[in-house]
């Protein structure tokens, strides 16, 4: 395992130490592994919290700041944070108007955040929850834990963060989050496995001439494995299932996301392929992100997220945001 780390068990806290040193505008609670804004938002505004296993940086800690999250709770690598820590963060950021939990749809995340919400409401904090499940690689059926939450999480955090910042109440913010979740979809692929520090070796073997289509962000297996293909073919395999799942004709925000080990030159190349396919299908890309936003440690590969937008969502997207991972208008 080749990583810039000391002991595997210290990765989370030592990385948080770097976050804390690099970003004076953020505050880090090392006991609970929580990143908050150093200056809380005004009393009376809904606070927005997200969290999950670590290893997906900049998600979620890199999206804490004005216009986006109020707190991010970091679990161990690929392991949901525990309810007490989510509850501590919830309490820390509540400004009297309730707290939205943005939860990616994995059994562990859902259960831990559910318990945290129970704990918070026992203390009189109103909690709303949105479960993000945008990954079309997994069938949403009675026979699975449902679709996984992946790239759309980034877009929801931005849009809902903007709505909370402008003072929308908890019910509206929850409704907005659910609406966005309903109109966005993602699909990813891997060229290589990731290596979990504690495991010390790649989670799966992917031969030099193979790729995995429909990969999750924890090295979970995808839809299938097949021979390495040109970017144009990969783009097609990512875009088609998204378009098959939902009609995206019209304006959309598109994210071409890197999984951590893929350089920007390749991401731009992929974006060109994906954008061309989407435009051909009548999707009008009005905003985009190309880069590493929700990663899977050192995995090489990428994912595509498409979100149908209207003027209201576009306005929220363009609203100022100032976080380590996304910043504009400020």
């Amino acid at each position, binding site marked *: 395992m080749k990583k810039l780390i000391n002991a595997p068990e210290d990765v989370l806290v030592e990385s948080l130490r770097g976050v804390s040193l690099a970003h004076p505008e953020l505050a880090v609670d090392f006991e609970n592994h929580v990143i908050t804004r150093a200056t809380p938002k005004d009393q009376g505004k809904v606070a927005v919290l997200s969290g999950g*296993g670590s290893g997906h940086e900049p998600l979620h800690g890199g999206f804490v700041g004005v216009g986006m999250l109020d707190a991010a709770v970091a*679990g*161990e690598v*690929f*392991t*949901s*944070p*525990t*309810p*007490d*820590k989510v509850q501590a963060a919830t309490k820390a950021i509540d400004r009297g108007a309730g707290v939205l939990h943005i939860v990616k749809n*994995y*059994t*562990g995340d859902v*259960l*831990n955040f*559910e*318990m945290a919400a129970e704990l918070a409401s026992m203390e009189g904090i109103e909690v709303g929850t949105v479960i993000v499940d945008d990954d079309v690689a*997994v*069938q949403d059926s*009675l*026979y*699975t*834990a449902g679709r*996984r939450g992946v790239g759309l999480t980034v877009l929801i955090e931005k849009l809902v963060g903007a709505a909370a910042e402008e003072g929308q109440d908890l019910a509206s913010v929850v409704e907005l989050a659910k609406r966005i979740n309903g109109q966005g979809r993602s699909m990813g692929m891997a060229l290589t496995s990731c290596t*979990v520090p*504690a*495991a010390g070796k790649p*989670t799966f073997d992917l031969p030099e001439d193979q790729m995995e289509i429909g990969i*999750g962000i*924890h*090295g*979970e*297996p995808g839809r299938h494995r097949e021979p390495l293909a040109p970017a144009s073919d990969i783009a097609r395999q990512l875009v088609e299932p998204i378009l098959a799942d939902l009609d995206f004709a019209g304006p959309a925000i598109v994210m071409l996301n890197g999984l951590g080990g893929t350089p920007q030159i390749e991401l731009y190349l992929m974006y060109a392929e994906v954008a061309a396919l989407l435009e051909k299908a009548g999707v009008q890309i009005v905003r985009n992100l190309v880069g590493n936003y929700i990663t899977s440690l050192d995995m090489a590969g990428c994912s595509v997220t498409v979100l149908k937008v209207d003027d209201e969502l576009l306005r929220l997207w363009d609203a100022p945001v100032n976080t380590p991972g996304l910043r504009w208008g400020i």
Partner: protein
Amino acid sequence: MTDTIDTKSLLDWITRYRDAVVEKREWLTELDSAIGDADHGANMARGMNAVAEKLDATGAPASVDELLKVVGMTLVSSVGGASGPLYGTLFLRMGMAAGPVTELDAAALAASLRAGLDGIVARGKAEAGDKTMFDAMAPAVDALDAAIAGGAGLADAARAAADAAATGRDATLPLVARKGRASYLGERSVGHLDPGAASTAILFETLAATIAS
């Protein structure tokens, strides 16, 4: 060996379970690598080590419900992932069902475990055959009930439960997962043991061993 299990023995059980999951952590993680995300061993070891540390630091409570509550709360706040809330709920509900006593007879132990199992179902919505820890735990609790109804002593009942858990674990091999991370695999989950069922079988095995000793 008596026909009740007291707080001290429950503590012994917890300790044995800790030792066993730490010893078998790599196997549990191997199982989870095949159909999950390669952390079940690490999760359970981290949780049970936290439980042991907590009990060491604060001293073990004298009453059954307090002890089980500490175990449950510590698991909830140290494991994360799916198994943290589920195992945590098991112990929390067991404690609530047991009440402020210092020992449990066979029937009370069975009722307590039944309550714990119900808690897991309430949280995780697993049904029989979903290829989860439920598939080892439900047969174990059923076997405990049946043995007691048949007049068996605590030791024999616990042994029956452990055997049923092991059988239940093995029966997850051919199943298609329908809950948790393994469900993403669909048919590809066939042919692998469920890691949570494996850790549950260990839980009942150590319970039987504790009572037998």
